[in-house]
């Protein structure tokens, strides 16, 4: 996936991001993943709720206050 296609959610508040991710992940087929950019506060906020079954959470710092996040939805959820 090219960088330009990765959505940037850094402007969303933590609660709005949480809601947005819940909606996206609910619609996501099992075995697929979503990727997006977040800021540090969002990263801290979403790491815990999205790092448990049925999800796998990965975050990589790519800037001063920017993280590339990937959330994978397991095959069996």
């Amino acid at each position, binding site marked *: 996936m090219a960088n330009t296609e990765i959505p940037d959610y*850094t*402007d969303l*508040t*933590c*609660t*709005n991001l*949480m*809601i947005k991710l*819940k*909606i996206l*992940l*609910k619609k996501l087929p099992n075995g697929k993943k979503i990727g997006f950019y977040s*800021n540090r*506060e969002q990263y801290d*906020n979403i790491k815990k*709720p999205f790092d448990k079954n049925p999800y796998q959470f990965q975050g990589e710092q790519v800037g001063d*206050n920017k993280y590339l996040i990937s959330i994978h939805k397991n095959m069996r959820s």
Partner: protein
Amino acid sequence: MYKFFFLFENKLRPERLEWLSLLLKNFNIQDNTMKRHTEIMIFLSGESQYSLLDGRTRRIWMEILKNPQIKLYLDHAELKILGISVDLLRKYYHSKININLENFWESLIDKIMDDKFGSQMGVLQNDGPYMHRTTVYSIRLMQAAINREINVDYYGYLDGVHLGHKGQNPSEFENISQSLSDIKEIALKKDLNFSMLSCSRCGIARGYIRSQPTEEYFISDDTIPHYYFCNLNKIIDKFEKHHLILSSNSAILFNDFQGTNSKPGLIIFITNSPYASEWTFGGVSFAVASATHDIPTQVIFIEDGVYGLAGIHQIDESNKIFNLQDILEATTDIENLDFYAYKPSLHKRNIAISNRLKNVALIDNEDLNMNILKNNQKSLYHKRIMFF
């Protein structure tokens, strides 16, 4: 002893008084069954007081006030402004009403403040100044608290963030930002804390914050000194604590458990239709944030709030709004968050709840009573109830 406190500042429609009447009746029945005594205090200010005269609601008040456990307190200063005759009210309600000729807000604090709350209270404000007189009442409440040597937190949410806008200069009305600054000055002189925190999401939407904040608490170029914006989570942090928090239309249920270790539960009544204003999204968003802080949170769709549950909302990216039904569906797995729909409100509007909303439980009067009373944690001392 149980205590149930209500504060209403906006118009009270027959529908609200009808379900409130049934709720309070159920309390009375439970009290008799459980040999328990509940003291119920209802404080009315502003336009909610019209309901005492209004032919559509007066009979409901008469019914409510038959219960000797219920005490009704009226705001004399506002009655005068509205031209509501005290003599007429006394003729209708006799000794059932308490009209405090002194300071309504100070007497409210005297009645409700308790050692359990410490010397701290919070005020959540969702309306903006001038368009809504609830801003004046919040100012009065905070002034009264400072007069009573209580530390105060102001929480600005939705249009409530506008209270701190600098440069306000109304020709006829009380200058709300000046009143906030005056409260701050008096608090400083008294060595009391008066903090003003507003939701950054609401602030960004309304143009107060135009660059990515780099600090947790920050001041906008457009607001008065000491008026901070922060992530909603920072405001919810305050809701984890045990102090009294009121908003323009709110209630507090006190119970007789003495411990204060658990986080006070939160009930949010969604009373507005879903998309015409920010009330519903604001309320649900607040509830999601609250639940993710492990605060037991119940959201009850009632009155016009049930419109959000009917039909299938077809909303795409171009509409630029969150689909309420998507939110409800997607947040099923959040612990501490429960959604309910009040059946009589659906019936009144001739609508049914959408089949897709499997996680929204239908409740009737008795269930409503049980939900409000439900105590998730035995050491809980009080529960907060807020109307959105």
